[in-house]
């Protein structure tokens, strides 16, 4: 019989159920993203054929397998340069980059850094589950200090990477942290980010019960979900200092940066059109 979940028109329904483990936060994040996109399409701000998902490698990057849009599932860490090129050639496209903390902030860190420096017109959604899930629970740049992982069996000696501070410092137009434990807030954050020019960066705190949950003794999806929910505090217009990344003390979620500087396409076109009046195609 016909199945009529409200998001089915935006899903490659023949690929559902997803490959993700039971209780994985990624599906919740994808649902919020699709609902936000749906609202923007309904409003007429976006067209379905002009939305594209790009992901590198990892559980989060496999988010590109399910939306019924133009999608690219490319190589580890390299979604951003792929997406910048599409945007430059076809400025009408809305490029949505989905990646995990390893994909975006470790192997792809240099591309993120330079996309931020350019204020490239991209929506970068970094889903942070604090570990490498697909490869079996290794150290991520966001893994809390001291924690056991399979590659830090005596505890993680490193500080955590706070990508929110990085994105804010390098001049993204929009920087927000959200959580899959607050799906409506997450949807609103993505909804807002979709309308921004320049770079919009959204960190989504998420749950990996199978791997991260096992590492910290919360293997049950509901237990891990509730633990994360407890650690999350919602704030209106929090300061950047409040973005501190600390598993022990918890996380502030909210919009840390919201500004409207010219994006890469604006400045790129300005310089080209100065010489060629009207600019590149």
């Amino acid at each position, binding site marked *: 019989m016909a199945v009529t979940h409200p998001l089915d028109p935006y899903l490659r329904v023949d*690929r559902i159920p997803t490959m993700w483990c039971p209780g994985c936060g990624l599906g919740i994040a994808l649902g919020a993203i699709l609902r936000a996109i749906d609202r923007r399409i309904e409003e007429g701000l976006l067209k*379905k*054929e*002009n939305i*594209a998902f*790009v992901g590198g*490698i990892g559980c989060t990057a496999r988010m590109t*397998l399910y939306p*019924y*849009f*133009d*999608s*690219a*599932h*490319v*190589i580890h860490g*390299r979604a*951003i*340069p*792929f*997406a*910048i*090129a*599409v945007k*430059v*050639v*076809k400025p*009408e*496209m809305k490029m949505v980059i989905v990646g995990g903390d390893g994909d975006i902030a470790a192997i792809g860190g*240099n*591309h993120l*850094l*330079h996309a931020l420096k350019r204020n490239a017109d991209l929506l970068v959604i970094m889903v942070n589950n604090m570990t490498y899930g697909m490869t079996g629970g290794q150290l991520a740049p966001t893994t809390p200090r001291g924690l056991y992982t399979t590659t830090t069996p005596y505890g993680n000696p490193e500080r955590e990477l706070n990508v929110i501070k990085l994105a804010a410092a390098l001049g993204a137009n929009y920087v927000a942290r959200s959580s899959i434990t607050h799906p409506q807030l997450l949807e609103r954050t993505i909804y807002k980010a979709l309308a921004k020019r320049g770079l919009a960066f959204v960190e989504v705190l998420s749950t990996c019960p199978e791997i991260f949950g096992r590492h910290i003794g919360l293997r049950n999806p509901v237990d891990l979900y509730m633990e994360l929910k407890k650690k999350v505090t919602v704030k209106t217009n929090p300061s950047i200092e409040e973005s501190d990344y600390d598993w022990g003390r918890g996380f502030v979620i909210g919009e840390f940066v919201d500004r409207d500087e010219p994006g890469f396409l604006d400045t790129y076109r300005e310089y*080209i059109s100065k*010489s*060629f009046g009207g*600019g*590149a*195609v």
Partner: protein
Amino acid sequence: MRYEYLTGNIAIAEASIVSGLKFYAGYPITPTSDIFEHLARELPKYGGHVIQFEDEIASINAVVGASWACAKAMTATSGPGFSLMLEALSLAVITETPLVVAYVMRTGPSTGVPTRSGQYDVLQSTYGFHGGLVIPVLAPSTPQEAYDLTVKAFNISEKLRTPVVLLSDAVVAHTYGKVAIRERSEVEIVDRSKPSTPLSEYRPYDPVDGLVPPMACFGEGYSVLVESLTHDERGYYAPRSDAQRKLMWRLYRKITESSGKLFDYSSLYLDDCDVALVSYGSTALSTQVAAKTLRERGVRACSLKLKTLFPIYEEGISKLLKNVEKVFVVENNVGLYYRELRGILKDRDVVSVPLIDLDVPLPQEVVGVVDKWL
């Protein structure tokens, strides 16, 4: 058509424009930066885009992205940069993304002598990336060939939906020569075939009839899937031996079965030849002159310059050399392409002439080595 006096590098840049280049991404590296600089100045005049990225990895991934946004795209680099690009070339192979990489070889390994020449990367240019398939490699030896082979590289990439390497070297890069520059209307330009199926029936990796699928791109409503995983015709992950087998053989066959059509060479005195000097790239210049010199001395020598290095057209090459007694493979490295030719010329006496010169080898050096064997 008009004539210009150009270096090999600028000939590549000019030819890419006439071929319809719309997107160039790059990272500066000797000896290719003047391709980049020339395009940065010229390409915007033709509605194209030129962007400097943070490294070669970003550059090649951007080129893949641009190609999926319907733009003909290329980058240029040298050994260290090409090494960084290999992973994405593999992506371009499995996603069947048309693109061109102008690979201007310099002395290595590693930083080597960055401004000087060599042909050390001839095997890396097609065997370097993971996944065990071949991508077409074309090698110019003069600015005119650089121009003509660039046009050809774009056409092959579009026709076969594959990355193509234009393998030049530092000598060709800086060689000046007379180049016939053609207008767009004077050049045969191939564009990728577009799907004729309705939006809802398009399958991005379905070759329909043949080996190369029609290619829709981003923003056209086809909901394309660019998939780095082993996939079926829909682009869906297919971790099964039958799917892997089907994909591998199609990707392999679409290149290798074109080897005859892609084959390009030039020769001197091949009809009447006992001793063939086979070469490519800048070293082929030395070899041509060496063949003339030997002939003046009464040796029935000839030269064969290969402009298509991969896929190797085995039948074609062995047929060209069928009446030759001895084959000398002359190259500016330790004897790399020799190994390829030895494999296909089993019944012939094949000798490696490995030269290591920072500049173009002098013809008398080639003659000197060949003399020892005659």
